Every structure is written in structure tokens, then in C-alpha cells.
């Protein structure tokens, strides 16, 4: 039997042809983003103006924060569907603790903390229920998401409480050096997430557990602990996103996260993080978020009829997902 396996003595791992192919597949999403951006730059005079680029960055900030949280959970091979409910609750907790038109609390920065920790709490509950009771993450987070909306509705009390603390509103509404403050917040979240992913146990073990859980278990890793921590990260990110959205809109609202869950998951998958876990990362998610935001922004600038915008977006996403999964399709795989 002949083979083309390389010699053990060599340090080059795989032949050039395969390497180029692998690089293209891995860089696929980035290439897609560049192509889209290029297309819109040509098709619309306003797309690549500094003003619009700044807006693009703003528009992807909140989505990216959510996507980052989701990435940690998806890397495990799990999913977190509670994002919208968590954002709703955390936005309301945040606004009701800060200076607002409903009560006399004025906790300022601690209100931010309260909002973010609300997210962490939801994440903790998600993780514990999933790990301790063995309920699939799909179901746990779906239920907790509904709880989040419910809690938010009770807090909402019929009308949206308005955030009156200007110091906090500046985060969502103000600019620094011509770029929205939200972008800086999102950048900070990305940096922290990257450090977690590269340099901490939570991050690295996430890859291990997602890549091959039985091996992880045999190696004596406390899988439960790291799963719970990943859910806490996701919940915290949703909490941050809820606070960000509240500063941007000036209210706490139960619908503040509306539609973001599906968009964020799409962004994560588009960026190259596999739903089965073990592959991907927050930088990939950034690219996926970029694709979606550029697409939405570009379609409006180009003047595509609102009636068909959603159809076009859906089509692009389907194509992108097929393209990224192309190499995997041959083996007899169970697709659920």
C-alpha cells in the first residue's frame, strides 16, 4: 500500500496544496466580507465615507457583544437562546437603578453593574440547570429566555422607564474622536474575550470540551465547571449588550433585544464557528458580525426595496453557510 504521508523527520506538516485549500476555507468569511464591502463601495457613493463607516461600527457593536458571548457557548457545542430575554431584563434593571423617570434611584455606575450582573445571573442559572439537571441547553435557555421576558414585563409595568442620567446616556449617544462610544465598549469586550479565549482555562478548555468531550473527561477536567462558566460569560455579554442598548435608546424595554438572537447566531456561524463546537472563536465572530452589518447597511444604501431586503439577506446567509460547510458534506454525517 503506497501512501503520501510525510516523513516524521520533516517539520512541514501538510503539503502546500492542502495548506492553500485549508487557508482559503478558513479565510472564507473574511474574503466574503471583503467582497461584500468592495461591492457596496462600488455600488454606493456613501458606503465607504467616514460617516458611514463610523455608523457601521456603531451598528455592529451591540450585535458583536452578543455574538461574543454566544461564541463561548457555541464552542462547547451548546447553544444559548436566552439572549433577548436577558437583554430585556438587564436593560430594565439597569434603567430602574439609574436616574430614571419612574423612581428615585440614582446609582449611576452601579446601575450598570446591576444590569450586567443580571445577565451573569441568568447565565449562571442557565449553566447550572443544563449541567446539574442534564437538560439540553436548547431547552434550558429557551425557557430562561422566556423568564427573562417575563421578568422584564413585570419591571416594565406598562410603559418604558426612561434613562435620565446624562453621564450614562453619553455612552450610547455620544462620540469620542468621531466614533460612537459604543464602539469602544464593544472593542473592550472583544479584547477581554480574546484574552479569555487565548489565555484562560475557560477559553482553552472550551475548545477541548467542544472538540472531544470524552477525552476531556478522561483527562480529569472538571467539565461541569467550565460549561457553567461559559454560560455565565454568555449571560454577562447579553447583560452588557442590554445596558448598551438602553443607553442608546434611552429606555429600558422588553423588546430591546428583538430579533437579535437569530441574527447573532447567524453571525457566529457565518464567521466560521461550528455549531457542533470545537472550532472558531471571537475573532471569527467579529467577521461574521461584520458581514451581516455590512449587508444590512449596504442594501439600504443601494436602495434595495424594503420588501425584498430580508429575502436577499436570507439568501446570502444560506449561500455562505453552504459554502463554509462544503468540505464537510461528503462523509455520512447525521445532520440534525
Amino acid at each position, binding site marked *: 500500500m503506497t501512501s503520501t504521508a510525510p516523513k516524521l523527520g520533516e517539520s512541514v506538516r501538510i503539503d502546500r496544496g492542502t495548506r492553500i485549500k485549508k487557508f482559503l476555507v478558513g479565510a472564507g468569511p473574511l474574503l466574503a466580507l471583503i467582497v461584500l464591502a468592495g461591492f457596496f463601495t462600488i455600488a454606493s457613493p456613501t458606503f465607504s465615507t467616514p*460617516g*458611514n463607516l463610523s455608523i457601521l461600527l*456603531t451598528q455592529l457593536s451591540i450585535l458583536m457583544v452578543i455574538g461574543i458571548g454566544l461564541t463561548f457557548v457555541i464552542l462547547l457545542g451548546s447553544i444559548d437562546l436566552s439572549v433577548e430575554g436577558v437583554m430585556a431584563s438587564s436593560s430594565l434593571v439597569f434603567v430602574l437603578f439609574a436616574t430614571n423617570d419612574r423612581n428615585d434611584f440614582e446609582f449611576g455606575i452601579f446601575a450598570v453593574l446591576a444590569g450586567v450582573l443580571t445577565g451573569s445571573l441568568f447565565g449562571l442559572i442557565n449553566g447550572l440547570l443544563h449541567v446539574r439537571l442534564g437538560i439540553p441547553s436548547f431547552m434550558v435557555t429557551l425557557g430562561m429566555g422566556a423568564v427573562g421576558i417575563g421578568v422584564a414585563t413585570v419591571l416594565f409595568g406598562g*410603559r418604558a422607564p426612561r434613562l435620565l442620567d446624562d453621564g450614562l446616556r453619553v455612552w450610547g449617544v455620544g462620540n469620542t474622536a468621531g466614533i460612537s462610544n459604543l464602539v469602544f465598549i464593544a472593542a473592550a469586550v472583544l479584547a477581554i474575550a480574546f484574552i479569555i479565549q487565548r489565555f484562560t482555562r475557560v477559553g482553552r478548555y472550551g475548545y477541548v470540551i467542544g472538540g472531544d468531550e470524552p477525552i476531556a473527561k478522561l483527562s480529569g477536567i472538571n467539565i461541569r465547571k467550565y460549561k457553567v462558566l461559559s454560560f455565565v460569560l454568555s449571560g454577562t455579554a447579553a447583560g452588557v449588550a442590554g445596558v448598551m442598548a438602553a443607553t442608546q435608546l434611552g429606555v429600558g*424595554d422588553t423588546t430591546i433585544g428583538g430579533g437579535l438572537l437569530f441574527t447573532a447566531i447567524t453571525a457566529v456561524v457565518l464567521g466560521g464557528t461550528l455549531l457542533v463546537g470545537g472550532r472558531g472563536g471571537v475573532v471569527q465572530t467579529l467577521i461574521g458580525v461584520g458581514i451581516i452589518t455590512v449587508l444590512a447597511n449596504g442594501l*439600504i444604501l443601494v436602495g434595495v426595496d424594503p420588501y425584498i431586503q430580508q429575502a436577499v439577506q436570507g439568501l446570502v446567509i444560506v449561500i455562505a453557510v453552504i459554502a463554509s460547510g462544503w468540505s464537510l458534506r461528503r462523509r455520512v454525517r447525521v445532520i440534525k
Partner: protein
Amino acid sequence: MRISGTGRQQMRRRLTTAAALFTVASIALVGCSSASEGGGEGVTGAEGEVQLVEGVRSLSNSYHANWVAGGELFGESIGEEVIVLSDEADSQKQLSQIKALAGSGQIYALNVDPNTSADTEAIVRAVTDAGGYVVTQWNKPDDLNPWDIGDHWVAHISFDGRVSGEEVSNALFDAMDGEGGIIAIQGILDNVASKQRYEGLTNALAGASGIELLDTQTANWSRSEALTVTQTLLAKHGDAIKGIWAANDEMALGALEALKAAGLDGTIPIVGFDAVPQALDEIQGGTSGYIASVSSDAFWQGGAGLSLAYQAATGQIDVSELSNDERAFYGTQIVVTADNVGDFLEAPSLEALQADFDDPFARSQGGIN
């Protein structure tokens, strides 16, 4: 400034809602069939035996919150509890909630805002099968009317978005001194309200030669979507935008935030619809550029609509004797501007609405044709 009811009323409403939702949920769990035990065609219930039900999209927007408050005022006036169904914009959920009402065996009077026009027929048929009485508002198919189905579909109330759309658009154009470009942010493109209001805008534009419609997008009634869309449109059209038209206040408020982020609030007039409390505050405040909204008086919708259904259910009104114009009619809308905003800032008292509860047709602007 509070528009919704007193603290105790809020608490009662919450408990009622919770209890109602729990009841409905358990009823739904036990039997989702539309078994009609309550009675057949034309059977009415005695006063005090008819269940009062409100069907709205969600309690977390002020519009429907006010609607429900109006319904509860009516309930208070006859000493009855009101069940509230909220479907969270899910048509399937709305229909199954309504079907579940049949499980109690009681005759019920339902005042409902169907999620989309496509849902109306299923809803009224379900109510008819169960022997209940329903008043629908806002969404129904153009070619389907209450008299096509029977007496159990008492009436359909709508508001001529074309009329209010045109009026409020003109208010916008006035604030722009008749010159400049506008962007229009629409609601869910399939909704009757969205389509009619946009048609009103189009009509107003026909008569305003100095105004140009630069762009129109949809934000699906959502505040955050409207913010994003407005941001992009600001980038696209820049200084050319001299006015913003939105099909409801939630979206107009989102657009306002986009202006704030760009440092443009106060320089560009905005109009919306629904007269939600925050919009009214902005109108009264006068500094943000928000100059007008339209009120259909959600309290009236919730209260008078329910009253109409109830009166039919108890036989006080004989549905078979109503004219077509009484079974499908337009209610009254008022354009709210800084001049009259004071009238709308508080919830009305029971006394103020009692006359309308007694005669739900008092505010009819004529039949829907």
C-alpha cells in the same frame, strides 16, 4: 408623568393578568379543542354571566397597556373582571389563546386586535363556533365583513390611517415650511395600519410640491430597528433630510435617538402615530423636534370596543338589527400637537368615558367601505 392607573390598580391588573394567564394556560393545556359547550348561534348570556376578554399584542407597549386600562375601566363600571390575553405578536398563539376560551363553557365578550389581517377570519370563526361575541379592531381582510360570518362577529372598528396619515403629514410639512426632503419609516409592511398611513403620506405628498420623499424603509414597528435604519439613512442622504415621518411613535422615538447620536435632535421635525406617553412628553417639551402624533384613544378602543361586544353578548344590542355601517366603522382620530397635548397626558376617568361605554357608536366616523 403617569398615564397608567394607580398603584393599586396596577397591582390588581398584574395579579389579574397573572391569574388569567395561568388559567388560560391550564385551560389550554387540558383541552385545545374548540369544543363549543357554551351555546349555539344567537344565544346570549345573562348579565353577570358573560366573561370579558381583551386580546392585545403585548402589555409591554404603552399603547396596548392603555387599551387594557380602558377595558378595565369598563369592567369596573359593570363590576366585572377582565381577562387579558397577550400574544407577543405570535398569530398562532393568539388563535390558540382565543380557542382556549371555549373551554370554560361560559359565553364571552372579546375585544381583540388581530395580529395581522390574515388572522381575523380564523379568530372570528373560532369565536362563532364557541358561541362568543367578538369585536375586532384594526386588521381584517378587505373582502371579509362581520355580516358575512354572522351575528357573533359584532363589529369591526378601524381607523382610517389615510385620513390621519394625511393630516399628520401635513403637520410635518408645515413645520418644514413646505420645503425639503423627508424619509419615511414604515411599520410591518403587511399591516393595514402601516399601509393606510403610508397611503395618507403619499396623498399629502401629492399636494406638497416642495417636499421630496428621499427614501422609505421599514423598521417593523420596532424602536431599535428604527434607530439603526435612521442612522443608515442619515449617512445616505445627509443634509438633504429635513423631516422624518414614522408610522408609529415607537419608531419615531428610535429615529429621534439616532438624531441625538448624530447631534441633530431639535433641528429636524419628526411625527409619529399612537400618542404614547413618551411621545406626548416630547411634544409637550417642544425641544426635540417631535411635533405631532395621532391618537385613536387607546382607552376608548379598549373600553368601548369591549362594551360593544358585551352589549351584544347580553342581548342589550340585537346584532341582526345593526346596519352595515354600524358593524364596520371608522373611529375618531385626533392629531396631537403642542396645542392640544395637554388633553392627552392623563388617563381619562370613568366618568369621562361612561357616555362612550353606553353608546359605543358615538365616535363613529362612518362606515368602512
